[in-house]
């Protein structure tokens, strides 16, 4: 993971083609949501030790935001999917 990411659109790519945005489990609250919900969305992170999902932007490739599911200790990657696909599923 720290070396190579398998982009679902471009194939195996080195880390330096990406920028990392952070926790991909967060869902943007509705405009009317509570202050606390907004605070948690913008500022609080589960920061798991182990399996996590993270947004990697393939900025030098297809320019897609990818959801990379991986382990924060072993750095093993479990899956990489397109961010829009994941977002649509989360909204469902």
């Amino acid at each position, binding site marked *: *993971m*720290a*070396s*190579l990411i398998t982009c679902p659109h471009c194939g*195996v790519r*080195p880390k330096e083609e990406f*920028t990392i*945005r952070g926790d*991909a489990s967060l869902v*943007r*609250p509705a*405009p009317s*949501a509570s*202050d606390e919900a*907004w*605070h948690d*969305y*913008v500022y609080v992170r589960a920061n798991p030790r182990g399996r996590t999902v993270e*947004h990697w*932007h393939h*900025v030098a490739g297809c*320019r*897609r*935001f990818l959801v990379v599911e991986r382990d924060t*200790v*072993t*750095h093993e*990657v479990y899956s990489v999917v*397109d*961010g*829009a696909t*994941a*977002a*649509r599923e989360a*909204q469902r």
Partner: protein
Amino acid sequence: MSAYRLSSGGLVDRSKVLSFTFDGRPLRGLAGDTLASALLANDQLLVGRSFKYHRPRGIVSAGPSEPNALVTLGSGARSDPNTKATVAELYAGLTAKSQNRWPSLGFDVGAVNGLLSPFLGAGFYYKTFMWPRQLWEKLYEPVIRRAAGLGRAVLERDPESYEKTWAFCDLLVVGGGPAGLMAALTAGRAGLRVILADEDFRLGGSLLSETETIDGSPAPAFAERVVAELLSLDNVTLLSRTTVFGWYDDNVFGAVERVQKHVAEPSAKLPTERVWRIAAKRALLATGAEERPLVFGGNDRPGVMMAGAVSTYAERYGVSAGKSVAIFTSGSSGYRTARGLAAKGVTVSAVVDSRAEASDAAPDGVRVIRSGAIVDTKGRQRLSGIVVERSGFEELIACDALGMSGGWSPVIHLACQRGARPVWSEDLKAFSAPDVGNGLRVVGSANGVYTLGGCLRDGAEKATAIAAELGFNAAAAQLPVTEPETDPSFAALWYVPGAKSKAFVDFQNDVHAKDLGLALREGFGHVEHAKRYTTSGMATDQGKLSNINAVGILAGMRGVSPAAVGTTTFRPFYTPVSFGALAGTSRDGHATPTRKSPLHEWAKKHGATFVDSGLWFRSAWFPRAGEKTWRESVDREVLNVRANVGLCDVSTLGKIEVFGADAAEFLNRLYCNALLKLPVGKARYGLMLREDGFVFDDGTVSRLAEDHFFVTTTTAMAGAVMSHMDYCAQVLWPDLKVRFCSVSDQWAQMAIAGPKARDVLQQLIDEDISEAVFPFLAARSMVLRGGIHARLFRISFSGELAFELAVPAGYGEAVAEQIMEAGRAHGICAYGVEALNVLRLEKGLLTHAEFDGRVTPDDAGLGRMFSAQKPDFIGKHLSARYGLTAADRMQLVGLKPVDKDKDMRAGAHLLKEGMKPSTLNDQGWISSTGYSPVLGQHIALAFLKSGRERYGEKIVVWDKLRDHEVVAEVCDPVFVDPENKKLKA
């Protein structure tokens, strides 16, 4: 030919004599030598001085684990300090210098530290040098720093070049010894893409100093045959002189190839070193095993070497380590060395075996002392004898070299670089590699297989298995025939009791057994604590020889197994790698790419001075003959724009085309101001926030068609804004029908500003661009006379009547030239970003000097742009937080010095008159300043607490950093044309 060169044998070319110097002394070696073997051949045993006590030190090893024989190679800007003589390939003209000695290697004043050693035990410096406090930096530290360190870095510009390259393979084999070669051959024949990397300049590893035969011929000849076959295979890449230094995630390996470190005059075409990043589906670690030194009194005397190294020098380099060589061993290896030496006619004075019983046979006539221990050594700068203790009796045995062998440890460094810990093996009496999965497997001696036949078999078998895993068909390899194997056993011996003088564990850092005792006594018994407290294993060899003994000694003292002590962490780099190699070609002007505007050549032609702006070069100002300072040019440009007209290159702005049925909705959510109802043919200033409510970027949004927008960003944030838009479109609102792409490079964009801008521009355009037809904030495509498709925007960053004209980038230069031509009669001038900055400053327009990531729209006086009516946009919700709306926030104001002749500079802070400077009293800071030629004085934009209520107040501009203080009046930040009369003219 020289004192210690054997008359025959070895893989050196006796017909190629190479001259070199050591400490200025001319010496001669042979092609195929390392510097170390050549020095030994020349009886130059003393090579360096140790770190702490400056003890004389000789060559210990024949490879990368060398702790002592460190030299500086080359001179001037081509110096390579701390080079291990044992891996430096000899070439004609090589110059080597010894290190860490003064005035000379033979006589080193620093050696006085040795006499003080009782006071300089591990960690002594933590306990003293504290009084008086001021003396640390003035006296103690400089003395310590001067005494410490090894070689000297010249810190001059390196004349040589470096590069990096990627490689992909099915199988990476690390190490080209028997196991590695056999694995590469097996996999290569099966058709796998194979890379074999070996740090040596000659492939073969231990085969090169092996005395046994393979398939009836000498081992080196076998290695040569295998290498020849590998070279003939297209799918195999052989990398000699290449050290694999690191194992990273996803089975990516870092390796450094010394492309031409071994030549006197490097070719300018080639890099001196090349870093390889190798992505391997599978890897085999065939890195062999490391022989362990024995920790006995006087074990650091020059002449005391690893037994294996003694063999290597004799067999591979045809050099005898001494004229009379003794062996001290805890296993069979010492006997092998003795047999090899005897076969070459070298006198073996004795074999001292720590074991009471052993089946190993010494060469005929060589005395064997079992249950023996060396407790001291004699000699000054070269060994002259050893003191052997047996059953309480001591005996002095004369010898001028000693080979020591404390058994073997597999070299498993790389396998442990990704978090897995080595595993103690009682069988091997060593730490072995952890199971790290299929990606990386250990083979041969690195896997604890210590027989030649076993290594060949292990290599072949593992390669066959890997081939099968990857779907290749590997025929069962025909294994070469080796001689009957000898028993490779040894007894673990961490410390030889009865030492009569210091028994060193870490040679380079001068850590001896008693230091470890002291560490344990003081509570530093954990292996990491012991390392950090004593510095054992922290030298340039990273403890390749010493760590295992340190662990064993700690285990012995603590009364536990080495397994319970464990090891320190293995980390990259396996051996040190130069900055240059890792940096590759990214240095100096190529440290980052350079972006050039399509108007770059035009600006150059008009004499522009350029300035960096991120990756871009931008034209800063255009000096004319007679102008002595940049200020003169900038003042002229500003005044000319205000009075006549100017042309400025703004091509570096980020430009994004946004399409789609939901494009308006998308932008409306992206910007804090309302954009939904922006009419076609109109542009609008737009402000983007971060989700936390602070300003992210600003720019313009133009609607070219119902579902087609053209967006500009600041130069600095172009990339970040594009990424932000990607995020919003893909992750936040994936169902919006919107698509966009960057066209930053497609358009050359120029601002034409000044009262005569329209008169100039109209000459290029048939369409009417009068105020009535093309008013302020008009935006649309049009065709220039001559047929160029262009876009024209009536926007202004100067407060003047202004247009921004975009044309396809290739035409930028020609169009700009045409405008200059058309404007000549109107007094047009080119102006750069400096004048642009003054113009916007006079008008109170903002840049990222103001938007520093901590500013809200209201802070910046742009609160009216914040559209509270919109249901949602990025940053809306959190903008309502107390801290972002508090009345005492710093707000944008203008400042004018009360005394018109005084200047102010950005970065100054603000204080109420009469108040003492303190963090509490800090009232704000200046974000931008400049000299306004229009007002004839300096002006500034500043952020001031509750600033908008304080117009008219006198405030102290406090620039203590530059010892500058003036009083200024707080005012509205728009200094010129507050009614926007000129803008809309």
